């Protein structure tokens, strides 16, 4: 996969992630927080619990059409790490 494809993928995944985050916070009747790549997802920085994160992962899997966890759990902590898991070619990942 070329770098530009990966880049475009990441833009799409980021947008799908933001959509998923928005639908989680809308259902909770809370404003959607602004987050960046380094935002930790479950350490309490934002009001996200494991059910919310599960929903984001299921929505991302559906939006991106592939499941990076199909062969088992892959660790991630931050928003950026999660987005890169869905962002196409795993060989290009840090």
């Amino acid at each position, binding site marked *: 996969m070329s770098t530009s494809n990966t880049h475009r993928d990441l833009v799409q995944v980021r947008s799908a992630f933001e959509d998923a985050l928005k639908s989680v916070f809308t259902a909770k009747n809370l404003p959607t927080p602004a987050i960046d790549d380094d935002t930790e997802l479950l350490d309490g920085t934002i009001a996200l619990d*494991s*059910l919310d994160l*599960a*929903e984001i*992962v*299921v929505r991302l899997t*559906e939006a991106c059409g592939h499941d990076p*966890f199909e062969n088992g759990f892959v660790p991630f902590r931050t928003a950026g790490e999660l987005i890169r898991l869905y962002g196409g070619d795993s060989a290009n990942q840090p």
Partner: protein
Amino acid sequence: MTVIDPSKWCGNVIREGNNTFSAGQIQAEAAELRRRLELFRRGRLALVRPSAALVTRLLAAIGDDDFGIALLRSRSRESRESLASLHIAAVMDEAGDIHETGISTRETKQQEVLMETSGTTGTPKVIIHSVQSLLSGVKPRPATAPPARWLLTYPVSAFAGLQVLLTALASGDELITVVNPGAATLAAAAVEYKPTHMSATPTFWRSFVASSGPHASAVPLRQITLGGEIADQHTLDLLRRSFPEASLTHIYASTEAGSVFSVKDGKAGFPANWLTSGVGEARLRITEGVLEVNSPRAMVAKEGEECRDVLSANASHWIRTGDLVEVRGDRVIFLGREDTLINVGGSKVIPEEVENVLLGIPGIVQARVYGCPNPITGNLVCADVVVSGAEQGDVRSKLQAAFAGNLERHKQPRIIRFLDQIAHSDTGKVSRSS
């Protein structure tokens, strides 16, 4: 035991699409069929997705001979290997022609019917019933009641379909069948043929009422029977409102356990005192939250087992039904199936409980709840719903309030898809196998 006696019938007995089969016709064809069956006496004969008329002819042809009839539904059962495992000597096609398999059959010492379980939650099993016990579960219409006209919503090769066929035949009543059964075609047939009796799943009844719309009241139903799935209070109330004149019965039966009991008070569940008193000839108990049944009308064997003698061995044989129940006051309430629980972060969620909450929201006519796998909580509760007679936006706006009041957070569906229809099995149950 003579299964059915066509000489007792009158009028048009079976309507199949545009064809009608009178008692005289069936009798004549049964006599012809009986000659062809001579070769296979005491053997096992298979029919694959047969019509009601064909099964009727066959039952009339068999009379009181010992015979095994396998009513098969799934394509995979037609393979030679599968037929051999069931000792099928011949297969009868829809025209009534008999094709020998060359498989050495097993001598039958009673009249038995082999059927597939519905397979709602997995691969269907083949189980064996004695015709005698099947017939003992059939309640013919009392002679004083006016004639009935049944509309068959199940395949006749399914346990519930055969029950309806046997009931209609035992009562000398008419039976209407349609060629491509589905909620819409059956609703149209109901408006056209005006049945007085119908038996179907709650899933079917909800689509039936939704697709009949204002025509529903033109169907002169006197008897509404629900089975195959949990008869929830929302659906019972919907039918009570739509058909105020009809008797409302929900039956508890399964291919394995046979007909166990029926409840006629229009309330979900069944009276808790049946756990101590039994009901009819059946005894009931709850083990680890699961309903267990002891009944003389249960199957006599599963595929590969030797047949039990119906009356003696079934006396001590308890069947674990897989149905989760809970005693609430003087009522036992069905919660769902133990084999379709959704594990959300270690907590078990019963999909039927969540579906019941969804179906309580005005406008939602069908609901299917399932787990979406994910690496964080194992599964996440998700739902498909079908909306009718309401705006999708109105329904959406009511979801959170309905969940908040009725479901713990991990049970609340996180992703809900609004669909035009939800797949059901050929027996009209919401499919849970996928």
